[in-house]
């Protein structure tokens, strides 16, 4: 009924005593997430929103059997937090912070690969599995509903827009994954699509991309293997070359990363590419078997 995250996932929150950590712990609990512990050095023994706080991930994992972690610490401490999670057996790490140095992300991603850890982000809104009533992230709870559409996005608010339009059109989601807006992130479209391929609850996938890099082009060929219909919407048609559009990763550099190249590649491998976000829901409806 979901990918990567399900109702059995036992979640800890690194940086639980910060404003963001505390607020989103409350939101996650409200949504149904099984938040079993929080980390905040020298604050072990406290409770935040009823969740026990530990000094270290090691203590938290020992005490709670946690297997997933969401990281809210400031960017300069994010690499440390990610390694702490990974070296202590956490196998799903969601990295919320933005402005993490790229060299740190390179290190995190390389280590994750060596250890077989799934890293979502950095600079992501997280991951939510509506049918399992669980999430690790900062997305608003009310815009999702359970259903057959898998969503994988590079941007946050834009994916909310699209998820909400799907929900309003009665097109619920299996899992929504934010890959993150940074140049180097844990996932690629392909790695997430592979999960959707193996998820029987997902019958159709929405890709939300943008200018910069070539993640969409790389993924295009995989669509043939996916075996499920794909609707793609990419943002940045009006963006000039050489300018960073908010996301560190959203930049057309040296002629690479243009929307044209991405849309062309996706279309060539069978995706239905729409040009405006409000066209996504309609396109998805056309792909689902009518009941």
């Amino acid at each position: 009924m979901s990918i990567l995250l399900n109702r059995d996932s036992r979640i800890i929150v690194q940086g639980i005593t910060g404003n963001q950590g505390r607020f989103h712990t409350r939101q996650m609990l409200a949504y149904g997430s099984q938040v079993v512990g929080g980390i905040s050095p020298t604050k072990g023994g406290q409770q935040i929103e009823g969740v026990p706080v530990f000094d270290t991930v090691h203590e938290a994992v020992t005490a709670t059997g946690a297997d997933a972690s969401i990281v809210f610490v400031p960017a300069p401490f994010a690499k440390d937090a990610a390694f702490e999670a990974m070296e202590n057996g956490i196998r799903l790490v969601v990295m919320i912070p933005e402005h993490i140095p790229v060299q740190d992300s390179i290190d995190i991603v390389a280590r994750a690969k060596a250890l077989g850890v799934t890293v979502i982000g950095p600079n992501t809104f997280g991951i939510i599995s509506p049918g399992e009533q669980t999430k690790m992230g900062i997305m608003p709870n009310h815009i999702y509903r359970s259903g057959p559409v898998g969503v994988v996005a590079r941007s946050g608010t834009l994916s909310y827009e699209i998820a909400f339009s799907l929900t309003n059109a009665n097109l619920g989601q299996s899992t929504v994954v934010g890959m993150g807006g940074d140049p180097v992130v844990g996932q690629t479209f392909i790695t997430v699509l592979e999960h959707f391929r193996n998820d029987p609850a997902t019958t159709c996938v929405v890709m939300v991309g943008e200018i910069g890099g070539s993640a969409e082009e790389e993924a295009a060929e995989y669509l043939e293997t996916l075996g499920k219909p794909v609707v793609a919407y990419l943002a940045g048609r009006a963006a000039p070359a050489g300018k960073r559009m908010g996301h560190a990763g959203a930049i057309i550099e040296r002629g690479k990363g243009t929307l044209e190249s991405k849309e062309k590649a996706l279309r060539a491998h069978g995706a239905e590419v729409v040009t405006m976000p409000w066209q996504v829901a309609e396109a998805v409806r056309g792909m689902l078997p009518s009941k």
Partner: protein
Amino acid sequence: MKQYEYLAKGALKAYGIPIPAGQLVSTPEEGAQAVASLGPVALKAQVLVGGRGKAGGIRFAQTQQEGYDVAKAMIGMDLKGYRVDRLYAETKLAIERELYISVTTDRNAKRPLVMASLAGGVEIEDVADDQIVKAYVDPEVGVLPYFGREVASALGLEGTIFKEFADLVVKLYRIYREKDAELVEINPLAVVDGHLVAADARLNLDDSALYRHPDTTIVDEGSALERKVHEIGLAYVELDGDIAVMANGAGMAMATLDAIQYFGGRPANFLDAGGGASVGPTAEALDVLVSMKPKAILVNIFGGITRCDDVAAAILQVKKTSGIPVPLVVRLVGTNEQEGVALLKAAGIEAYSEMAEAAEQAVRLAKEAL
């Protein structure tokens, strides 16, 4: 953040990579003085544009008088839209061959990539793939000397140049890694007198890592307005249209520009008000948009962390204090939508719930304003 050539070369030098003798020139007198101390020089405009040579940004001076004259002609000139404030004077090199070398981050491989070519001196994008050696770095290992030798070997280098090149790869990677660079490039990497010299250099730094390098020279080539909004802490890019745009989230902001274009309008800017900005910064950002004197303003908010009533409050605050003398279109949905819409309505502003409708209306109003 891109660094000027002279800063990039300073970094190379600090890591033991040979660069030509050179000095900064900010006045015609310094142009003459550069020839006096260096002999015949190349005078290179310190601006962050590609194809600088072809655009007239590199000239030569043999004599002190020429140094004065060329510097006088170049300082203050416009190069592809950028004003030239400084030149970098460098000993003229008797170049035998031009190679290429760079270290950058490969986004798909998620690791560092060393690129090298015997076809230096032109933009690497214009070099055929089969003339480029690409070597990915395992970040858990880094670049040990053998890695440099493998690149030198793949290029078919020999003797002294083989050794110097292999050594240079190690040093260039250290710069990339230790300075948190996005790109460090030597092009051309010249062979002069049988030895390698970095004839030109690029160094782009990771903005997110600047806190680790407090001594970095901050280079912001943006417009005055861009710099101002960057100081508020928001992402902002100036465009050439007439509809000012504010949205929350980078993807939403891009999509909003796309929507304006879709309906035949021209966006004036990219502005990401952030995923959870509060009243203050939102109002500040809106103030900037007003100051641009656009034909219309479009505010597109999907309230997730951002609360719609905060956005409404920011709009009303700007309306009250500075005034909003141009047509304003607001799209407001999500968290605390009802409260936000009600606040606006009470002030006579009708909020849209559909992004498409709001974008279309903004384009219509901008056209009417002509």
